[in-house]
């Protein structure tokens, strides 16, 4: 049993939770994930670790209420327990020899992009952070992200706060202005990661994306999290979740992640415009 020691709503859809799991907190590294199961009848659901506190023994998860299991988790309160919390799983991110990095977060993906930016910032790397949201109401972690960025850009689809447009628009204009990056880290909805990767490929900037596919065990056993990278089948749970954005078959991943959509009876429409986003003409 694992206790929820802190819970707060970041917006109507996104919840922050600190879970008491000292053994995991001790080992967790940026880029790794956990699997939770709320109760006996629950699913095993993977979530990337948003933060950890080795002294307090807590692991932070930030999640969007999209399906039955995340809804179930969101109904739990501070002091409540969940049945299972396993990790840290996956290969930690490692960024070597980088001096200047653009970190891009989309929606709830900012929860994962933020600790990456923080780790890079703390390592003395110059961080430009671009955070994209649908609108003003769902902006999360703005102050936190700003605090760890040398330059911070906020974009919303409807322009209700920050610049109007997609994160790719912001990145493109920065690149056109002559900004040069050793690396781009993009974490968010799969279409967002796809279009960021397409753009950075034009500029030949190495790009890391973080996958969150369907999986059962998270240790390499089920093979459900297959991702095609550079024409080869990889397991996101052990080979990832980070992959080279220029080599991931995003379209296949979008299809695979929607496999149980019909059965996710309680799943809610996320309403994310990025999911219906098409490549701009002339690119």
């Amino acid at each position, binding site marked *: 049993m694992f206790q929820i020691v802190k819970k707060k709503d970041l917006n109507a859809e996104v919840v922050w939770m600190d879970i008491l799991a000292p053994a995991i907190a001790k*080992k967790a590294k940026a880029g790794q994930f956990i699997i939770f199961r709320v109760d006996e009848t629950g699913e095993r659901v993977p979530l990337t670790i948003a933060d950890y506190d080795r002294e307090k023994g807590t692991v932070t998860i930030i999640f969007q209420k999209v399906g039955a299991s995340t809804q179930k988790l969101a109904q739990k309160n501070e002091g409540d327990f969940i049945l299972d919390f396993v990790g840290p799983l996956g290969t930690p991110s490692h960024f070597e020899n980088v001096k200047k990095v653009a970190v891009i977060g989309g929606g709830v993906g900012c929860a994962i992009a933020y600790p990456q930016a923080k780790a890079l910032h703390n390592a003395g790397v110059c961080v430009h952070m671009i955070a994209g949201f649908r609108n003003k109401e769902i902006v999360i972690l703005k102050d936190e992200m700003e605090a760890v960025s040398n330059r911070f850009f906020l974009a919303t689809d409807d322009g209700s706060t920050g610049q109007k447009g997609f994160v790719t628009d912001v990145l493109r204009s920065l690149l056109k202005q002559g900004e040069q990056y050793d690396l781009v880290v993009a974490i968010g909805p799969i279409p967002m990661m796809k279009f960021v990767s397409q753009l950075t490929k034009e500029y030949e900037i190495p790009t890391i994306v973080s996958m969150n596919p369907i999986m059962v065990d998270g240790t*390499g056993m089920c093979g459900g999290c297959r991702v095609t990278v550079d024409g080869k*089948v990889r397991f996101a749970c*052990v080979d990832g979740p980070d992959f080279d954005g220029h080599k991931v078959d995003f379209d*296949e991943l979008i299809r695979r992640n929607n496999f149980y959509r019909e059965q996710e009876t309680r799943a809610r429409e996320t309403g994310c415009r990025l999911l219906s986003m098409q490549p701009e003409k002339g690119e």
Partner: protein
Amino acid sequence: MPNMQMNKTPMPEQDGKVRARNFKEVALGYTADMAVEEAKRCLHCKNSPCVSGCPVNVNIPAFLAQVAEGEFEAAYQTITATNSLPAVCGRVCPQENQCEGKCVRGIKGESVGIGRIERFVADYHMQRETGVKVSRPESNGHKVAVVGSGPAGLTCAGDLAKMGYDVTIYEAFHKAGGVLVYGIPEFRLPKAIVQKEIDALTALGVHVETDMVIGRVLSVDELFTLGYEAVFIGSGAGLPRFMDIPGESLLGVYSANEFLTRINLMKAYDANYDTPVQYAKKVAVVGGGNVAMDAARCAMRLGAEEVSIIYRRSEAEMPARLEEIHHAKEEGIIFRFLTNPKSVVGDEEGKVTGIECVEMELGEPDESGRRSPIEKKGSEFVLPVDAVIMAIGTSPNPLIRSTTEGLQANRRGCLVVNEEMLTSKEGVYAGGDAVTGAATVILAMGAGKTAAASIDAYIKNKS
């Protein structure tokens, strides 16, 4: 006088057509009378070849004699002196290749139904909770860690606990039992029975820590710093193989591991559980082992109209237990022998619509002694299906070997051990599928048993 009936006393089972649509146990087990009658078929021959056929050396003639006398609880004690999981072994051991394969009654007629009687004895004991209290052995003050709670780990832990060791089992899943809970389906091995076997171990003082992925949350080296004097690795062969043919990432292609785990561990067939599984109408299962049979029979129970097993060799080469093949056929599974998949085909949404196969013929025997299949040119055809389950084998998970310095593995990723089950690292023992690659429950148990004896000797010599 022995019962000279040539054939085994039949065991009642659910009718094929009925059970093909439910997850209840297929075989219903002997009654006391049946068990006594069958036990009397044992001739008590001089050199007991059956015992030499048993990887954990159960004293078979002794327990059969006790059953013949109606001394069922005594028989249970005889079996559990060397076998810590009798209810499991009675159900899933390939007895035809082991004890029963060596039985002299099998020369003319059928061997004694040792497995069926073992199962009866174990169930008899469990149903009665006979009050024979398991006495917790006195602690010898030494701690041992066991990684993995499958048959190898459970056996090793049980044996060590009986010797007085303080044993902790670390399990990556949320439930103990390994392949016995995630792999083998309910209708072949009810999970309540596995749980009772595990409860028996905890009653002996074994600690079970679930949700602990060794290699991630704790390394093998760290286990030693926690005070464990030896570590047994029984982490199994959990990594599924795929065929590396086009279309394997289409929607509806599963590894048998994923399909079976969703059903057995996560209970996806039960509406009260949240984990989903696809209810396919036409299913192809690729492979010829017990796992392929399990996957095919589960697919049938989920309501499929047609389930085919696709196997590239002929029936004679099929590695699955005869009983499983027989049961699968009774349940209406179609066997397509000498057939090999070339690709999985799908529609524009990426969903599986069929599996392209080619017919095979048998050529010369290969290094395994089995005649190797050769493609028949021009015999390609597409079998329309909406799900494909790959059950072509598994390999050991690299997680532990890649995070433990000094642990040697062979080119197939299996841990290298000596006869004592000692790995290349001091104090670290291993056994089961992690060493052999995918094999049987009872072989894993045998390895766990050997390792327990070696660990005991190692710790005693050290201190």
